[in-house]
């Protein structure tokens, strides 16, 4: 059976055998990676995969599975229905979406799937560029990915989507304690610019040489897009109705409330073809849409699938995952200030270029800490005066969102090891960020 026929087959068979609701997606794809370390290729990797995800509901009992042996589909359906009989009813299950739906048809860059030896060449360009611009060693990865998803549901949905994209992530070191990190994600390979990424990371590393120990206290911080994307990924995650129900959201009970300054507008937009991740349909086949999560500082909606929408007197926002709602991407509306204007506006503060290891003390209150990594610069009277190290941000997410002072005019799409959701953000200034450090 051709892979595109599998979802329809599974839906028909499961329906005949008594399932109430069925969602089946079949996917196949290829991914390639060049991983480089100490300015050399450490390993090349290629992945080829085929798989089928099935979601079944009967008498409000729900079960999902993932299989990759396509010869076991009939057995899998039988097993699922046998298991379902023994399950307990889910009070929260409210069904899946009724189609049919029309989906926009977007092209994709077919050249990306053919890349192989070129990936090593592009990696070499990035490494050379970083080394020419201040780095003495470089590490990172270059990815190319392409794949197709076919979807069918018992709600009369049939759809398929093919996509391809590339990511580069490069960390340049000028010394053991001076580094700069840059990333880029594209869906059009002509836009990939490994030379710029290498150059900017190399220059940043050089500027970060000889860092001094940072100070504790509350200061204004300018975050790069790479750094600020960490916070927006958590904000988008907190907007999922699934997170709210699970006690993992700092937006619980805040619909209609002010959660940021008036100039903060945050969206999840599955319809923007310029976003590297913008699928035409969600996990139930509902067409994706532009969801304004925060508008002019006010929390407007959670992200819903059919079940969470019905439970919350809302309508699906086209964000169904296999089980829980999820954002497809996250973007904030840019402002008018340039990075240089924002630096000039800071009297006594920091310029933080990357973050990692963000961990919550309490997901509902939003108390957390995170660690600046790579270049951190001190700003005095509107000028960068030197690099600092060994500090931590110890904060509260809702408070911090309300203290956003400026949003820049230079949005970039960020996705890398530490930020899995595609986030589009400019530089951002937050007032009074609490900085701590080791006591001894």
């Amino acid at each position: 059976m051709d892979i595109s026929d599998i979802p329809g087959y599974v839906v028909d068979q499961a329906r005949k055998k008594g399932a109430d609701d069925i969602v089946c997606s079949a996917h196949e794809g290829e991914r390639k990676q060049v991983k480089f370390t100490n300015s050399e290729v450490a390993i090349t990797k290629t992945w080829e995969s085929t798989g089928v995800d099935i979601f079944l509901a009967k008498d409000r009992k729900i079960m999902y599975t993932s299989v990759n042996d396509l010869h076991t589909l009939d057995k899998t359906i039988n097993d699922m229905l046998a298991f379902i009989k023994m399950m307990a009813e889910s009070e929260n299950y409210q069904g899946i979406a009724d189609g049919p739906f029309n989906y926009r048809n977007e092209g994709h860059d077919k050249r990306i799937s053919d890349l192989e030896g070129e990936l090593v060449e592009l990696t070499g360009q990035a490494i050379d560029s970083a080394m020419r611009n201040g780095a003495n060693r470089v590490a990172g990865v270059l990815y190319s990915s392409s794949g197709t998803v076919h979807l069918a549901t018992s709600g009369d949905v049939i759809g398929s989507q093919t996509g391809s994209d590339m990511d580069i992530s490069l960390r340049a070191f000028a010394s053991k304690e001076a580094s700069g990190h840059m990333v880029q994600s594209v869906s059009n390979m002509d836009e990939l610019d490994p030379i710029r990424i290498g150059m900017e990371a190399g220059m940043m590393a050089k500027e970060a040489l000889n860092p001094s120990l940072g100070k504790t206290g509350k200061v204004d911080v300018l975050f790069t897009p790479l750094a600020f994307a960490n916070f927006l990924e958590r904000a988008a995650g907190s907007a999922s109705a699934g997170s709210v129900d699970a006690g993992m959201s700092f937006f619980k009970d805040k619909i209609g409330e002010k959660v940021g300054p008036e100039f903060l507008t945050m969206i999840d937009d599955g319809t923007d073809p310029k976003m590297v991740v913008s699928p035409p349909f969600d996990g139930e086949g509902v067409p994706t849409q532009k969801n304004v999560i925060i508008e002019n500082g006010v929390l407007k909606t959670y992200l819903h699938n059919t079940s969470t929408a019905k439970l919350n007197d809302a309508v699906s926002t086209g964000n169904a995952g296999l089980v829980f709602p999820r954002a497809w991407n996250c973007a904030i509306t840019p402002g008018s200030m340039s990075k240089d204007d924002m630096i000039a506006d800071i009297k006594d503060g920091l310029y933080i270029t990357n973050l990692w290891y963000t961990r919550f003390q309490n997901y509902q209150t939003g108390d957390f800490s995170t660690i600046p990594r790579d270049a951190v610069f001190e700003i005095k009277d509107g000028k960068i005066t030197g690099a600092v190290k060994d500090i931590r941000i110890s904060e509260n997410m809702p408070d911090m969102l309300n203290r956003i002072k400026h949003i820049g005019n230079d949005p970039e799409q960020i996705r890398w090891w530490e930020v899995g959701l595609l986030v589009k953000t400019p530089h951002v200034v937050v007032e009074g960020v609490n900085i701590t450090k080791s006591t001894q």
Partner: protein
Amino acid sequence: MDRDLAEIAVSKARELGAEYAEARMEFVSGQDSLLKNGNPEVSGFERDAGIGIRVKVNGALAFASTNRLDRDSVLAACERSVRTARASSRIMKNPLEFAEGKANIKDYSVFQKKNISNIGPEDVLRALSEIEKALPSENLVGSYFSLGIEHREKYFCNSEGSKIASSIPRLHLFMLGTILEDGRTAQAMLQLGAASGWEFMDIDKLSHFLGNEIKMTHKNMKEGIKAPKELVDMVLGPEVTGIAAHESCGHPYEGDRILGREAAQAGESFVSEDMMGQQIGSEVATVIDDPTLENSYGFYLYDDEGIEARPRELIKDGKINDFLHNRESAARMGVESNGSSRSKNYDREAIVRMANTYVKPGEYSLEELVEDVKLGVLMNSFMEWNIDDKRYNQRYIGREAYLIENGRIGAPVKAPILEMTTPAFWSAIDAVGKEVGFTAATCGKGEPGQGIAVFTGGPHIRLRNIKLGGE
């Protein structure tokens, strides 16, 4: 499992010009259930199978995986791996070498009193529901509760003659509890796990453990006082000792991290190769990583390069004593691999990982550790934690903690913050308890990410003259 496919892959890769080739075929069957606020949200099962092939051509490494387990797809993956390795070897300045590895032939499995293959989704859901019902419900306003079981069969072979088959069951219980007191909430994130049969699911024991954690978290919220601002002695419980052993000893002693191979992802290490033998902590501090602990969550007997696993003393009597190595990092440092190569699944490259990292027990009882503390804090468990990517500045915020005054454990202390450097932490230990406890955890590393099963652990340990952090 058709082991011939793996053998064919290795032969084919050699035929195509690889100087070294290995194949790892894995079959995974698993299931999990999720209760959200007592409601059975969803149950699922997984059947995954595939093969990962790693080759070395002219000193360049390549990895290819496929989950299409037919001969043509496997041979195509071989060709891909050799082709891409050859392409990168052309620009390689420092060809890679592997440390010597003995050819091992072994077939091993974890003994199960109650085989998890006989456990159905109804058993998983029933176990979850029974534990949930036994929890104290008075202040528990939210719960997100999951139980997953998996059975992983693996066959590894390489061009040097190793043939290792393993069969390992694992169980993992996770709970996020939200506890309310006087309009404020606290959260307890709890994990339990083991490489074991279904006998691990002792409902009474697990309910008792989780119930106690919830009660203690509530008590801490309700009665907790502020942590002292002056210098204190800290007594850390096994959960906190374990996370510190994992984060500030296990990770910085990973050979690949020291060599910069994870620099753009999980980071590097403040430890360098030439620090071997250096005093990094007090003489009573010894930290071990041991994959061979029976029924441990991080259990294995042979690593994913076919090297026999053994305990590694990372810190011995306060001195840096050993690093964790696979064959690549070992060769770069001129030593033998100590069997630390692990992967999450067939579709991931095996890299240097911890298994079960713990502080070696000493001779003190908890009472003895506490009795000569004038002013201190006993921190039994933690909430928020993190550490920088060179593993130098760490922070743990206490969930269950108590004031110690004049040798007695007193009132709960609310959210004490231990925020200190790694050498300061290991140097401040002056006494080590005798009873070891372990916590199951999922360790993150690798690109793409490979969350992997580990234990963290140790006994109670005492640290002298600590300045707690805070705003």
